[in-house]
């Protein structure tokens, strides 16, 4: 297979060394850092909104079981739609257009499935005897929810937050294509200019951010499981 001319030009550029560290030093404050901060902001805002929507929804559908299958079906269908396609559809909607808003809407939509599903699974994992005991102690349904059920469901909910966070950080990179900003901007600019340093900087930082969030939330998840801690012995 003949390499395309563009590939040849690119490979020739690579000869002296893939990373142009001087560029990284010069543009760190101006390009790289704002992209990283923008990425964290986009992901954080989306996750916060998604949690604010999913937690109450999860609690509600855990109670009214008939609503669970349609909610999960809808959220699952949304989740299956490739992000670039969802972005393309969103920007054609009047009032949305290109920019961070469209990206945030998509990221919220993608997070809802995992968050609702795990909230329900977490609440389901609370033993009925525990709830009976709480009722026997005279706790009101409200108190049971906030003081017994939700704390016990927390590890499963955090597991959902972990999956949602990794998904959101990954998809947010694609959001740069519709002017959402973030680390994807470095990647797309690097592709446009055939400049490997930008591509690698954006891709490496996005990967590092996703892996760090994954590991961090996994540690939090383990900490929240008191039974696992007990088995581990020392506690904290």
């Amino acid at each position: 297979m003949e390499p395309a001319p563009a590939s040849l030009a690119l490979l020739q550029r690579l000869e002296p060394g893939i990373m142009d560290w001087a560029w990284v030093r010069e543009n760190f404050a101006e390009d790289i850092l704002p992209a990283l901060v923008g990425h964290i902001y986009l992901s954080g805002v989306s996750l916060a909104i998604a949690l604010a929507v999913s937690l109450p929804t999860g609690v509600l559908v855990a109670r009214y079981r008939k609503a669970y299958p349609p909610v999960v079906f809808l959220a699952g269908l949304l989740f299956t739609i490739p992000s670039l396609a969802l972005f393309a559809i969103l920007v054609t909607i009047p009032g949305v257009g290109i920019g961070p808003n469209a990206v945030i809407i998509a990221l919220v939509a993608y997070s809802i499935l995992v968050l609702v599903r795990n909230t329900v699974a977490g609440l389901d994992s609370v033993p009925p005897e525990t709830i009976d005991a709480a009722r026997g102690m005279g706790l009101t349904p409200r108190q049971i929810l906030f003081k017994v059920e939700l704390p016990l469901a927390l590890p499963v909910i955090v597991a959902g937050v972990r999956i949602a966070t990794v998904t959101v950080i990954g998809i947010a990179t694609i959001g740069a294509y519709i002017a959402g900003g973030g680390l994807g901007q470095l990647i797309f600019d690097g592709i446009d200019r055939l400049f490997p340093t930008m591509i690698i900087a954006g891709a490496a930082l996005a990967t590092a951010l996703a892996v760090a969030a994954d590991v961090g939330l996994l540690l939090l998840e383990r900490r929240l499981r008191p039974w696992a801690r007990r088995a581990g012995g020392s506690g904290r």
Partner: protein
Amino acid sequence: MEGILQVFLRPQFPGLLLTHVELSALAVALATLVALPVALAVRNSPLGTAIAVNAGNVGRAVPSLALLALALPFLGFGFAPSLVALTALAVPPILINATTGLREVSGEVVDAARGMGLSEAQILRDIQLPMAAPVVFAGVRTSAVQVVASATLATFIGGGGLGNLIVEGFQRGDEAILLAGAISVAALAVATEALFGALERALTPKGLRLARRRRTK
């Protein structure tokens, strides 16, 4: 609406769809060829299983655009670099499910089989593989849906596929082309999910299905 239909009727459309399906199918097939032997090799070793699952978890966190974009400086533009990146993307879900699936076949069942005088090869073929098949296949399904979605991004490194339409739509500011691309990609992803869901049900051994139904009652 009419504009969208016209895009579907373009002579190039079947080619784009075919490239998209080719990229995705080859990536999932290659990833299965990589992940399954690894899962089989570590099936009797807790350490090997832990390493494989953790590697899979880290791999799954890597953003798809990052992987595809990284192929560009090292492998150049085109179909082959896209295929390499998509294969790398397809491995983690299969690896995680195949490893945990084989691991979860309970010790007692394997012990019983051994007690009945089955050889290790027979245990693998008649007990471990059929019992793990639904979990393994669930990994292939996750992987396939993810790869069909990510293959949309192959357009950015010249890999072709239906993503070309979305990029063309953006560049020309043409909503019909944009939506035609988006709708066809979304439909392909949903169809993939449905197809693999049906295959997964078909692959679940009858005994397991009965056992599961009894458990949920």
